[in-house]
C-alpha cells in the first residue's frame, strides 16, 4: 500500500497518513445446544473500527486542527479510506463508516523522531462499514 486515501469529516488527510487498519467484525454467538458434538456459532451484532496513523501536524487545517475537535464531539462523522487515491471503482472500493473519534494520541514520539499519532474511530451509525464502488 503506497497511496491510500484518507478522508475524515470531509477533510483529506492522506498526505499526513502512514497507516490504515479497518476492522469489520461480527460478534460470535454460541448457539451450541445439548447433544451437539461440535460448537455452533451464529453471527451476532456487527461492529466497525477504523484506525489511522498520522504524522502529527499542528498547522491550521491539518491533522490536529481536524481531529482534536472531534474527540469532544458526539456527532457521528464520515470516515472514508480507499486502497488508492484514485476514484471509487470495483477495484478501488471506498471503505465508509459513520463513526466518532474515541481515541486520539495527540503527541507521540521520541527524540529525533517524527511524532506519529493514531486516531481510532468506532462505528456510531446504524449501517456499520460499507464498501461503495461508485
Amino acid at each position: 500500500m503506497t497511496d491510500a486515501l484518507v478522508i475524515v469529516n470531509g477533510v483529506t488527510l492522506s498526505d499526513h497518513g502512514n497507516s490504515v487498519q479497518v476492522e469489520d467484525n461480527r460478534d460470535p454467538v454460541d448457539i451450541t445446544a445439548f447433544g451437539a458434538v461440535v460448537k455452533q456459532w451464529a453471527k451476532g451484532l456487527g461492529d466497525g473500527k477504523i484506525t489511522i496513523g498520522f504524522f502529527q501536524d499542528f498547522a491550521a487545517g491539518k491533522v490536529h486542527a481536524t481531529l482534536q475537535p472531534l474527540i469532544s464531539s458526539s456527532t457521528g462523522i464520515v470516515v472514508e479510506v480507499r486502497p488508492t487515491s484514485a476514484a471509487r471503482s470495483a477495484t478501488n472500493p471506498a471503505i465508509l463508516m459513520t463513526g466518532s473519534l474515541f481515541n486520539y494520541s495527540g503527541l507521540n514520539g521520541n527524540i529525533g523522531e517524527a511524532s506519529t499519532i493514531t486516531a481510532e474511530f468506532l462505528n456510531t451509525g446504524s449501517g456499520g462499514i460499507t464498501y461503495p464502488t461508485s
Partner: protein
Amino acid sequence: MGNLYAPTSERAKALHGEKPVELDLTAIEEADQIGAGHLEIVPRTYRVLSNNFAAGEQGSDVDLAMPVEQEAALIQGGHIERVGAKPAKKKG
C-alpha cells in the same frame, strides 16, 4: 452558534411556525429533534478556507447542511467559515 432548521412536523410548525427558524440547540437536542422528524437542517453557505476540504476548492462557497458539532469541528479546524458571519471591522 445556532443552526437554521425547517420545521417538518405539525408539532414543530405549531412551535416555530412554517418558515425556517434559527435555534441554538445542543448536539443532543438537535439529534433528538431531527431523529423524531420535527426539524430538518437547512443548508447554509460556507466559504472553504483550507485546501483539503472535499466539499469545495479553497476560496469557493459551498452550501452544506451540517449538524452543529460537525460544523463546529470544521470551523475550529480552520476548514470553513460561515459566509456573512464575519464581525464588522472597527473603524480607526
